[in-house]
């Protein structure tokens, strides 16, 4: 299988390439050969502000690039491994920010909560809504919370094609939280309501809780 340079950028004032961009560009590339492709898992071990190379299947890792994450896509009834590598060199180009897509955030007091969303119905717009919602719930824990990162998706079945509801709501339930090396790691279950909503899955974040 081939490797592909992903068209990603530093959105707005961010100093990192968003995981949602990496996953969205990956989904588009995989869907070219496998229209039924769905993202199952994704795990990021570090962030980058440089370009990103996607390796699908058993393809060779690009020389000199550090692995920043890996995942699995379900396609044609089989699991396809995907890996992402940082491309050594200049920073990714800066791209325009996009407005928020969630509203009515309602924390449940236990680390979870709900929010409504209005999106384009694409994989990327849906993922952006979910990450925006979960990030806001983490930020809502207090002023001492910083460095909030989306780190993983597990047990998902997120179609690569634009089959997502254009309006709906998200319910996030915090299931596991752990302190590891000074960072709080969380695992929450995300349930989506709306026409064509994907089944529930787990999402992981990490953040720093200050003194």
């Amino acid at each position, binding site marked *: 299988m081939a490797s592909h340079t992903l068209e990603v950028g530093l959105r707005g004032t961010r100093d990192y390439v968003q995981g949602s961009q990496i996953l969205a560009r990956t989904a588009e590339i995989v869907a070219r050969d496998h229209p039924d492709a769905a993202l199952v898992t994704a795990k990021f071990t570090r962030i980058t502000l440089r370009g990103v190379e996607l390796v699908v299947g058993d393809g060779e890792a690009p020389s000199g690039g550090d692995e920043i994450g890996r995942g699995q896509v379900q396609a044609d009834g089989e699991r396809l491994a995907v890996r992402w590598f940082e491309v050594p060199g200049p920073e990714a180009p800066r791209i325009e920010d996009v407005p928020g897509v969630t509203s009515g955030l309602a924390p449940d007091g236990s680390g979870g909560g709900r929010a409504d969303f209005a999106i384009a119905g694409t994989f990327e717009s849906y993922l952006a809504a979910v990450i925006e919602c979960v990030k806001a719930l983490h930020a809502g824990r207090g002023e001492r919370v910083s460095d909030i990162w989306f*780190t993983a998706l597990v047990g998902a079945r997120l179609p690569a094609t634009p089959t997502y509801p254009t309006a709906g709501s998200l319910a996030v339930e915090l299931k596991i939280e752990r302190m590891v090396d000074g960072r709080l790691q969380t695992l929450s279950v995300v349930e989506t309501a709306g026409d064509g909503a994907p089944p529930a899955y787990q999402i992981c974040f990490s953040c720093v809780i200050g003194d």
Partner: protein
Amino acid sequence: MTREEALAAITKALTETVGSVDGDVTEGTDLVADGMLDSLDSMTFLFELENGLGTKLAAIDEAYEDFRVGALVDIVVQATA
């Protein structure tokens, strides 16, 4: 739940988390130190374990870091007694 049943539940949660497990999982196995789980996987493992058992394991709080299978078996047996 017996210790054998607890070990089976732990092995199932581990398999759900990492796909396939190389070698035997015994009470002497340390899931993190032996390289079967990294810190992200360990959260998924705990989620799968609690899901499989159908109960929250009160002994596993945010500071929990003992991933020796023997210790986990103790917790599961106690929680399901």
